[in-house]
């Protein structure tokens, strides 16, 4: 039932791949991407760099889901630590490493709700003193918020899947303040007249990435 094989089935040397790409730096959106299954396989073998890359990639998702539950400070840190410890524990048993974002979002939500219910029970006198209880965590706008966190994660993951030139163009287009087409042309070495069409192709490519398709499939849209 569980996949408990520590070796990467394709036999690639994931460790050296990960080590070469980012020996100590934090993974960011401009790095050459490693696939999540590759990172999970390397982490199963004990590769701290691969684990750090998983953390860098999915920490915004955990932080986002926790914030949606209006948990802050020590409570937020407790939930965060618990989620990552559980992931370490489950690394060898993840049946679908490519669905890691969903596992993380679900586990984080579960820990948030459990913590909030305990707080609610142990402080019946003045529930209003704790911001988290101003709203029912299960009401649908929170559910919408959580879906948004998963959408954002999928968009960031999809961006990583794009070839570097398209990824750089999209990152320039969304930077703040937005650069002029002249600046983009000079920086990326493409004619001003082809920025529009290239942007359209990059967005089309983004829609067809594995990360976006997986999300749409999970939510029954595709």
């Amino acid at each position: 039932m569980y996949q408990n094989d520590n070796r990467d089935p394709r036999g690639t040397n994931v460790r050296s791949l990960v080590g070469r790409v980012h020996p100590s730096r934090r993974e960011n959106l401009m790095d050459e991407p490693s696939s999540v299954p590759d990172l999970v396989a390397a982490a199963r073998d004990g590769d701290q760099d691969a684990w750090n890359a998983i953390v860098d990639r999915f920490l915004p998702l955990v932080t986002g889901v926790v914030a949606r539950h209006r948990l802050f400070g020590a409570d937020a840190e407790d939930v965060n630590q618990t989620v990552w410890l559980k992931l370490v524990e489950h690394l060898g048993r993840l049946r679908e490493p490519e669905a890691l974002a969903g596992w993380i979002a679900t586990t984080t939500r579960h820990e948030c709700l459990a913590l909030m219910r305990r707080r609610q029970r142990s402080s019946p006198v003045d529930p209003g003193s704790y911001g988290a209880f101003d709203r029912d965590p299960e009401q649908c706008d929170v559910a919408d918020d959580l879906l948004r966190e998963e959408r954002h994660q999928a968009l960031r993951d999809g961006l990583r899947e794009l070839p570097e030139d398209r990824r750089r163009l999209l990152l320039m287009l969304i930077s703040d303040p937005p650069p002029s087409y002249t600046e983009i042309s000079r920086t990326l070495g493409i004619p001003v007249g082809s920025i529009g069409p290239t942007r359209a192709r990059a967005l089309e490519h983004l829609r067809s990435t594995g990360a976006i398709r997986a999300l749409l499939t999970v939510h029954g849209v595709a």
Partner: protein
Amino acid sequence: MSNWNDDEALIEELRAAVASSGAVSEQSRDAARAAFAWRDVDRELEELLSLAHDSSVAEDVLVRGPAGTGTRALAFEGADVGLEVELTGSALVGQVLPGRSCRVVVRSAAGASAAVDVDEDGFFTMIDVPQGTVRFEVALGDTGYATEWVLL
């Protein structure tokens, strides 16, 4: 769902997605990275005790009843060993199943730990339980069992 078929809508949400990825705390990042040190290379699957019941997440309306009873019941199950604990504040009573004398350690991810001897019926009590994210370790003969992590 907003419409990702629309280029402008997609660009807008992409902007928000990339912007929100910067809003993580360094404390969270450090804790997440450090969690890897708890990787149990040698622990066999059958030595892991899974959380089978947690009264704080039970959906039962009766259990959710009057708030503030303050006691939390947890049950962990493995292939041939189980562990049940009831926590009230920082004190706990527990039982290893099937009952036998052994030793239980409560270990927090922050590094605190407390150990207690278990009597021949499997019962034990502890008055100063480490808080935060903890796991229970049960030493039975040559075999070490550990529960999954749980936030107290």
